[in-house]
């Protein structure tokens, strides 16, 4: 499902940050086109 897909990541500073999600979805063969870590405070 992720292999070969373009992925946009909306991480959360108080949850799972964008960088951590980037690292894991890259192992599934996804291409990260956008990644950010939002702050809801």
């Amino acid at each position, binding site marked *: 499902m992720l292999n070969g897909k373009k992925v946009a990541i909306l991480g959360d500073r*108080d*949850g*799972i940050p964008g960088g951590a999600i980037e690292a*894991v979805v890259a192992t599934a063969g996804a291409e990260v086109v956008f990644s950010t870590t939002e702050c809801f405070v």
Partner: protein
Amino acid sequence: MDLENQARIKKFAEELGAENLVVILGGAEAEAAGLAAETVSAGDPTYAGPLAGVSLGLAVYHVVEDEIKSECDAAVYEEQIGMMEMVLDVDAIKAEVSSIRKQYSKF
């Protein structure tokens, strides 16, 4: 959801094709993750940002959902996500985001 990020998601969906783009969330709470999921699939429910009234229908998942976890390297997943997975209310997040996806995602 951040208004600038709404604009970016809209731009990528238009440029790459909504069917080719998957949004992955890392929100700490089910409600916030659900709002973000709704924004990129049905449109901005607060009618404040560029996605107000724009139903992109994007495929959207939280990174703790089984569909994502099962496709990623287990060791990397454990290293990057494992700690937060123990802290977050994973069942509530899964229920909320999958419910939104089933209602509004077109891909």
